[in-house]
């Protein structure tokens, strides 16, 4: 635990010295904030919490991108093997990845709230306890997902390709950029199987409808189970050596991370109310585009 904390502090320093990290963790989410709130909520205060929920989700989901690239780079450059010859376990290395990311993302989230209030005159804070819980679980889940990607890819190029595919799906199919009710119904149905969708809709519900934590139980459970599973699997699959190639069985094992979302997606498809809740939250915006309600 002590090693994990030492590594966390060092990795936070490294991140803050990295221009790419500053851009993608702070500048990039703020660009989204000004873009979304500036374009869609400038003269419509009621839309601010809804748009802020999307921006928060994008900020949180960004965790997986930088972490996976960093870990693969560390492995490729032989940095990890230097730690391996010291009394440092894979658990400490992975936990420090998540913890440093968590600590560094929280200020961005706070700044986003402050700017939404100050510049875009947000007049309600939502259920802050729920926001904190979802943001925290979201960061851990998506960071752990990044660690899984790092475990099953062999090079930074391969990691970037997989990240790009996942990032695009998270960004455009989950309701993070285009509201879920505006998407074609088949995409809405597909979205029920994406972890990002639960983060986005969960945040919309606590921000817009200000629901209690119990009402986002499914989202919280799915994120928590996935975070735990992804962390456990990344520990099992962790590779210190650049030449240690991942075996195909490990890739299958990594795919187990999607199991909670697969189950939740199936449950949501048959019994759930996520899509109708997303529609309700969307309709709270005063001048909505017509939502796609075809089933």
């Amino acid at each position, binding site marked *: 635990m002590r090693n994990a904390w030492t590594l966390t502090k060092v990795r936070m320093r490294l991140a803050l010295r990295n221009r790419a990290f500053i851009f993608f963790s702070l500048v990039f989410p703020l660009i989204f904030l000004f873009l979304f709130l500036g374009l869609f909520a400038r003269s419509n205060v009621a839309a601010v919490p809804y748009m802020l929920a999307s921006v928060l989700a994008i900020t949180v989901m960004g965790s997986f991108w930088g972490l996976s690239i960093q870990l693969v780079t560390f492995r490729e450059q032989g940095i990890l093997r*230097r730690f391996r*010859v*010291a*009394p440092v376990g894979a658990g400490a290395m992975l936990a420090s990845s998540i913890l440093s990311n968590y600590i560094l993302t929280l200020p961005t989230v706070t700044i986003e709230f402050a700017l939404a209030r100050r510049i875009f005159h947000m007049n309600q804070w939502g259920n802050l306890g729920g926001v904190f819980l979802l943001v925290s679980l979201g960061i851990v889940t998506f960071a752990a997902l990044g660690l899984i990607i790092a475990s099953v890819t062999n090079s930074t190029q391969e990691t970037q390709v997989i990240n790009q595919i996942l990032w695009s799906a998270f960004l455009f199919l989950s309701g993070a950029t285009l509201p879920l009710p505006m998407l074609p119904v088949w995409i809405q149905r597909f979205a029920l199987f994406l972890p990002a969708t639960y983060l986005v809709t969960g945040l919309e519900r606590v921000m817009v409808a200000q629901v209690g934590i119990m009402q986002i139980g499914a989202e919280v459970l799915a994120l928590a189970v996935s975070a735990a599973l992804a962390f456990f699997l990344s520990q099992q699959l962790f590779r*210190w050596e650049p030449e240690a190639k991942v075996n195909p069985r490990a890739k299958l094992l990594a795919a187990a991370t999607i199991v909670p979302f697969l189950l939740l997606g199936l449950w949501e498809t048959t019994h759930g109310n996520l899509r109708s809740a997303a529609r309700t939250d969307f309709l709270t915006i005063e001048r909505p585009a017509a939502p796609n309600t075809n089933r």
Partner: protein
Amino acid sequence: MTAPIIEVLNLTKHYGAVQALRGVSFEVQEGEVFGLLGPNGAGKTSTVEILEGLRPADGGIVSVCGLDPQSTGLAFKQEIGAVLQSTALPDKLKVGEAVAMFASFYKRKRDPAALLKRFGLEEKRNAFYSQLSGGQKQRLALAMSLVNEPRVLFLDEPTAGLDPQVRREIYTIIEELKHERKTILLTTHYIEEAEKLCDRVAIVDQGRVIAQGTPRELKQRSAGTTRIELRLARPESDAALKKLDGVADCHASDGVYVVHSTRVPQTIVSLVKYLEAQGNELSSLDIAAPSLEDVFLELTGRRLRD
């Protein structure tokens, strides 16, 4: 005699179809500097990485400080220090931070500031790793390897790729550690390094230890012969040169003929006569005392840098 601090018996390792180690055995006593000398691909790094606990062996018995590197995990790593061959630190990590961070991982630790001073890195404390020269990076690696007062220090090709001046700097540091009676296992393909720094050397080739002993003992294998290195205007056959007076052996490599002679003056006289008769000429001639290179050449028929 106390029990060896490193024991290796019949170590085997293969990577796919390649048999990297074919039954390597040796022992290292506490306070000794032991060298594994051999060409690239001989199996030195595989051996060291198994001893460091970085790789599992396929077969054989390994003990370091009385522990099995594979099964004792983090407890074992408290006891050793290592300078690895292909490793790095994050570019934006500062020198002082790196030493302090690694010190924090160990139960037994040295003062990071004192280590930086000893290795001449005091002024570089706030420099990023990416700003260091090759020699400074290697001095930092050595400082970090000593941060836990290791009982055994592994140095895997510690001067590979460094220029001669920096290499001498590193030799000085290793000699200081030797005077402090630090147990060191060093791998190298530099003859000079093995002869200068090691108390005992194991010569490794194609996954086997083909000879071991003190550098003096090993060189005595070539005792009674003197090495003469020749370059000729036109090539000659080894067989012809072997027939010259006093010649015990002759190998050619990269246009250099290495002739081992038991009677140097007679060999040179008969060489000159022979070349005159062939219409050939001497381009250069060097006479040298036998080195570990000669031992390797005698044992394998190849030069270390082949």
